[in-house]
């Protein structure tokens, strides 16, 4: 290399660095001046699978879709009852027929008028596309039920006029209206979206409070207020920047440095404790519906023994798990259904008590003639449910071993392998987590209790299967609550799984931001339209 070239290179780099350093403060102030308006920045580590409602079944994608699209009905914050959004009204004529009337003169963000045909089109394409990452399974009540060639069932949706949509369900299903509140029920523009394939993310057009101004996968989504939206979810900020973070560490650094105004999902308990201590940002907590539980394998020699399952239910110390493994950021759970849902009962507290009961555990094992200590293999996955999963498992293992009734050992596998292993009966007891698809107790009962649940643990109780069908068909709220209670009582009696805790819905926000607390509820819908930032 020539001497002059080397000198020039060094001088160039030095000049750049000097220039950058000199203008650092200027740019920062320019940047902060720019964000001093009502526009605000959300940082999240959630990933986006698709912005087309037919292509996603994850919290990250759904949360953007809630801002971009309307559904016929929506879940207001901190409410368990849906209210109309695109619809003026939605009512069951009978448990198999739901009629919705659209509000008149609604438009998509591109000016196209929304009609009942768009609703029919949206549901049909979701089923027809049947995307591997999509949530078409939630529309089973209007599906033709075919694995190959899935489509809308014949006559499942009729549109007598431009503003009327009638759903004719395959079977009585009073939870279907709750499904319509999810992003799977989003209404898309039939003039823009293809009928048989997904639309490119950057091209999506909806009628929600915000329209997509720009989208770079994994980096940024920019939302601009939709001038055609006239519903009840009117956005407060004109523009919202959503910045995507790979994981919690840079997100924590960004919110600490004020680079994002709100950090929502997901900071670690340690990061949250640190931010709380420093007090420069608000750590805002709302009720959550994340559910962590331990599944018994009924196909294992240990798990099929009812007395063993009950003994463990007597011994688990949920308070210790919540405080020692999660720094108090979770709430002990005593039912499959989280608090706040209609029909919820703390059945496990009633049967097994709120605190560990060693004597009762000894008695139930002795009465059944079970030889102690019982060898037990506990499974968990170290990453998928966050870094504290190992702490939780260690807590449970120690609690069981300390009783002298069990010789428990814990074993782990990465998420992909874990799913295979627990279905192959590699564990007697294993950890799983759940976020609801829609806010109804049924979404915690049917997936877990009917014919071995989605995790196929081998549990099957005809009475339970029948009650699930009954509560889904019941329109009388009081009667339905009774059936839901029976289901939870039966789950506590049979112990196919042991509830562990319910997560809180936590965000960290700048002190200039308002409205975050109002949206943090069990639905895990981050209602961006409710959030504002002062200058």
């Amino acid at each position: 290399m020539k001497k002059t070239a080397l000198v020039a290179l060094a001088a160039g780099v030095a000049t750049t660095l000097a220039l950058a350093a000199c203008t650092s403060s200027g740019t920062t102030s320019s940047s902060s001046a720019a964000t001093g308006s009502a526009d605000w920045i959300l940082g999240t580590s959630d990933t986006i699978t698709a912005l087309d409602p037919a292509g996603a079944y994850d919290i990250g994608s759904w949360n953007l879709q809630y801002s971009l699209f309307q559904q016929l009905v929506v879940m207001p914050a901190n409410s368990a009852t849906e209210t109309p959004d695109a619809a003026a009204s939605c009512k069951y004529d009978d448990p198999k027929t739901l009629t919705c009337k659209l509000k008149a003169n609604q438009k998509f963000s591109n000016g196209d008028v929304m009609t009942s045909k768009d609703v029919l089109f949206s549901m049909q394409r979701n089923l027809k596309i049947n995307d591997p990452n999509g949530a078409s399974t939630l529309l089973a009540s209007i599906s033709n039920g075919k694995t190959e060639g899935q489509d809308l069932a014949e006559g499942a949706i009729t549109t007598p006029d431009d503003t009327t949509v009638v759903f004719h369900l395959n079977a009585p299903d009073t939870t279907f209206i709750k499904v319509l509140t999810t992003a799977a029920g989003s209404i898309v523009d039939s003039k823009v979206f293809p009928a048989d394939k997904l639309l490119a993310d950057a091209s999506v057009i909806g009628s929600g409070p915000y329209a997509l101004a720009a989208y770079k996968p994994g980096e940024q989504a920019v939302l601009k207020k939709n001038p055609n939206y006239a519903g009840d979810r009117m956005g407060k900020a004109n523009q919202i920047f959503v910045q995507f973070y790979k994981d919690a560490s840079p997100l924590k650094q960004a919110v600490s440095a004020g680079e994002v105004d709100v950090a929502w999902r997901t900071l670690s308990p340690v990061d949250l404790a640190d931010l709380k201590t420093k007090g420069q940002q608000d750590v805002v907590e709302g009720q959550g519906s994340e559910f962590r539980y331990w599944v018994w394998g009924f196909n294992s020699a240990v798990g099929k023994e009812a007395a063993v399952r009950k003994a463990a239910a007597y011994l688990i110390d949920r308070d210790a798990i919540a405080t020692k493994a999660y720094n108090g950021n979770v709430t002990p759970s005593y039912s499959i259904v989280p608090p706040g849902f209609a029909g919820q009962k703390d059945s496990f507290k009633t049967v097994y008590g709120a605190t560990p009961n060693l004597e009762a555990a000894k008695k139930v094992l002795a009465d059944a003639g079970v030889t102690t200590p019982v060898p037990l293999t506990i499974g968990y996955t170290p990453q998928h449910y966050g870094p504290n999963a190992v702490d939780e498992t260690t807590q449970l293992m120690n609690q069981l071993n300390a009783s002298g009734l069990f010789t428990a050992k814990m074993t782990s596998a990465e998420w992909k392998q874990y799913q295979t292993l627990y279905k192959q009966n590699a564990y007697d007891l294993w950890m799983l987590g759940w976020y609801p698809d829609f806010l109804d107790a049924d979404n915690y009962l049917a997936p877990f209790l009917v014919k071995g649940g989605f995790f196929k643990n081998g549990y099957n109780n005809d009475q339970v299967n029948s009650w699930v069908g009954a509560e889904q068909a019941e329109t009388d709220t009081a009667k339905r609550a009774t059936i839901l209670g029976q289901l939870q009582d039966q789950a506590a009696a049979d112990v196919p799984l042991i509830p562990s805790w319910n997560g809180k819905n936590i965000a960290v926000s700048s002190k200039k931001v308002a409205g975050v607390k109002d949206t943090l509820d069990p639905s895990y819908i981050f209602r961006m339209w409710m959030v504002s930032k002062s200058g």
Partner: protein
Amino acid sequence: MLLIIPMMWVLLTMVFILLRVAPGDPVSAAVGGKLDPTVIAARRASLGLDRPLIVQYFEYLGQVIRLDFGKTLSDNRPVLDIIRDNGGATLTLTIGAFLFALVIGIPLGLIAGRRRDSIADVLIRLFGVITYAAPIFFVGLLIQMFVARPLGLPTSGIASPRTQFMVGSAPKTHILLFDAALSGDGNAFMDVLIHHLLPCLTLGLLVCGVFIRLVRVNILQTLQSDYVEAARARGIPENKVIRDHAFRNALVPVVTVIGLQAAMLLGGAVLTENTFNWPGLGTQLVHYIEALDYPAVQGLVTFFAAIVVVVSLAVDVINALIDPRVRYR
């Protein structure tokens, strides 16, 4: 040159096999905690993942030959779009890191070589070992905490959200730094440049340790060579001997090492990008590995490998140009 073809074939085959022997599949990675096993099986079938591996393998090779990397399974993006949209960020990160490595590593190596066994030499060697051995994510975290925050520098990202939106939404080159420069907006350009500082420094520190040791050793060797002794004997001042005779020759092996460092830089870029939330190919690669997205991982690893091969080839050519001893006949 022809060795590139079998090399790439072995690499493609290894990536294909390793992804398939890893437990799970893209469908269960995405919705495995939600759906019934029969539904998951149906979804796997719809993606063609239930077909014999050999069929999938030859289909994959055929696509690569046609330079068709397909679409990702987890979010339906063409893999070539990912390379186009995110490659620029990795490019500017690695070039910036390389400049930092040169600017820090070469002068320090020179000082250490000239002052052998002095306190300065010991400290510089120690610095070189530490920067080479310390994990990037740890160095990055320290820099974020102890450099970025006190100086008010950005801790993550390639630009502030507003700049990213204004410049990035109408890309001309898909390299944000260049697009910012082309936009004519000085603030936007400086914003992107400032965001480059700490990630480039972090990655540059990794490579500068190599340069420090290399330049130091070469300086020591050249200072003991006959032509340097001859120069000294002719009464040429020591500074001029070092500058004109020892230093220039000591730099020749550095050019060779640059080629070897390309792979190290790209590997380090993956970790740096994740630490600084940098929107480059490394971040994308980690994301798609976690999703077990076969086409994405295969496409990106192939691209990374091709880059390393091309850089190595270019360095060989440059080496032959500047050093007559290694010219091919």
